[in-house]
């Protein structure tokens, strides 16, 4: 990739300071996303994927703090911007869609108003122009009878429709980057697909970049260009989507793929869950976070976290595992 990435995150480290101690939610995450690209971030609950994005947009709750790292958006480090510059950027250049459309919309304001206020906050246009824009947006996200539903309150919409409202709200200022934090998790399975396809369709029409956070691998294969796998607050592996599904290199990714049903793999193989549970981020393991659950763990994994190894540059494939070290013993049955 020759052009510089739209968002370039390096060594992002975020902790929450609770009464029980420091919870290290994100521990040195690196990733890039280019203009027009759809990046999927997958991982179990608590792997730090949402917190990574919240840190980038500086929307952490009171007790959360980004300790170090950089997040360059179009060359400016978001973590260094003033609160005013940050405000101008949020909702305008970078927009966000949240997991639960039931709670993410203000129940006491009409949906129209909630989008209009976003537009007026960023664009120098009149209320009536903003209103017309909302009608267009509602049509774009396929809300029926768009014009008449502007004055409705969130509770008068179904879950799927509310998520469409959230999407319309996120799109209202033509963002360059859209962060969708598990946008379908709270919805019915049938609706989930509709919303994802809608996102994909809008992305191909408008051409913005999307970060899609999810723990559902089925979701991600269909919509994204590239995947970032997170575990224990760390980016484990990243590659173009089909390449990663074909040739997962990291034991965690391999485990993850083996634990979900896969339509392409109907050979009667049993699903294999990963034994154990995710690490307690109050006291994360010293070495590789996945070590305690990894069946290929080596002595070095206990003490030292692995660096990021370039696997395949053409597929942007990188993985953080000591197995990729030239001196590491070869694994049997490994498709490397």
């Amino acid at each position, binding site marked *: 990739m020759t052009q510089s990435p739209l968002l370039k995150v390096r060594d992002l480290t975020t902790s929450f300071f609770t009464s029980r101690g420091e919870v290290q939610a994100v521990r040195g995450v690196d990733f890039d996303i280019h203009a027009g690209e759809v990046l999927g971030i997958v991982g179990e609950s608590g792997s730090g994927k949402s917190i990574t994005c919240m840190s980038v*947009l500086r*929307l952490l*709750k*009171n007790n959360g703090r980004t300790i170090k790292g950089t997040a360059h958006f179009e060359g400016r480090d978001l973590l260094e911007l003033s609160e005013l510059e940050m*405000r*101008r*950027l*949020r*909702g*305008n250049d970078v*927009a*966000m869609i*949240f997991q*639960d459309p039931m*709670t*993410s*919309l*203000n*129940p*006491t*304001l*009409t949906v129209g108003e909630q989008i209009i*206020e*976003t537009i007026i*906050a*960023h664009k120098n246009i009149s209320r009536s122009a903003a209103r017309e824009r909302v009608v267009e947006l509602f049509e774009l996200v396929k809300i029926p009878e768009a014009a008449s539903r502007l004055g409705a*309150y969130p*509770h*008068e919409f179904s879950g799927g429709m509310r998520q469409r409202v*959230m999407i319309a*709200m996120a799109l209202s200022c033509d963002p360059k980057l859209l962060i969708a934090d598990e946008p379908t998790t709270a919805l019915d399975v049938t609706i989930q697909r509709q919303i994802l396809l809608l996102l994909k369709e809008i992305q191909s029409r408008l051409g913005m970049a999307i970060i899609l956070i999810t723990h559902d691998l089925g979701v991600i294969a269909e919509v994204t260009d590239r995947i970032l796998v997170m575990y224990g607050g760390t980016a484990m592996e990243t590659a173009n989507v089909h390449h990663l599904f074909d040739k997962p290199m990291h034991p965690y990714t391999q485990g993850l793929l083996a634990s979900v049903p896969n339509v392409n793999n109907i050979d009667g193989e049993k699903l294999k869950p990963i034994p154990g549970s995710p690490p307690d981020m109050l006291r994360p393991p010293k070495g590789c976070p996945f070590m305690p659950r990894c069946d290929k763990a080596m002595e070095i994994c206990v003490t030292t976290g692995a660096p990021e190894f370039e696997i395949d540059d053409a597929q942007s494939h990188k993985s953080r595992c000591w197995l990729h070290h030239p001196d590491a013993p070869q694994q049997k049955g490994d498709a490397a």
Partner: protein
Amino acid sequence: MLAYFAKRIGMMVVTLFLIITLTFFLMHAIPGGPFTSEKMLAPEIEEALNAKYGLNDPLWVQYLNYLKGIITLDLGPSFKYPGIRVNDLILDGLPVTAKTGFLALLCVAALGIPLGILAALNQNKWQDTAVMMLATVGVAIPSYVVATVALYIFALQLNLVPTFGLDDWRGYILPVAALSGFWLSFIARLSRSSLLEVLGQDYIVTAKAKGLHPLSILFKHGLRNALIPIVTVLGPVVANLLTGSFVIEQIFALPGIGRHFVLSISNRDYTTIMGITIFYAAFLMVMILIVDILYMLLDPRIKLADRNK
């Protein structure tokens, strides 16, 4: 909307009717007539008094007469002050009670809510600690203790304010402070927790993610929603300011309805007790109705519930 209010007002009338009936029969369940307690009265005089006030009629006739009176907004004669009607007593005390009560309510809303907001926005900082400490004191110490201690310190010792009466504005300070103390603290605590709860909601994160101005987030998204539970307790607050005025008016010797009420209790002036009770109940129900209307204006979800019915 209209149908809902018609229903609400209908409910109010029924409730009021129940309260009138209950109060009437409670008062008439007291052993002995209203004039038996006074030993001075000769039997024939007592008889004449009973006849004059219709107390010899069967109970249901008295009840119907009383209801008839209430429909024409007449609460009957006082048993203890000859020639004075309960209406007169209420009208006599109303200005004082209304003035102090209104000022106290103003204090509760205009100080309690901002203090709560201040505490919530500075959570766990010194402002928060100070407001919460004051509020805990205000909630814990009974109003009559606040009133008497304040009376002793500011009126008797320091001579800053008069000990009784409302002759100038300084006379209002202590009664209003004592009357509003508890509810001011209560509302400050409630506003704080309500605002904190709202500020922790997902839609506040959404508002931040939209890049809105912090003031817009606080007022349009935060306070608007945080006010809903505060508005719902304003009805009971008014009720309690009224009953609180019984003791405040007694301590500061203010000629309000509360004073008449307490006097009528010690005088066993049953019609006055009954009349003032009913007046309070009716007033309260109107207040609660007003609060409900406010509530509806603030929370659109309520309207839907009504539409679906």
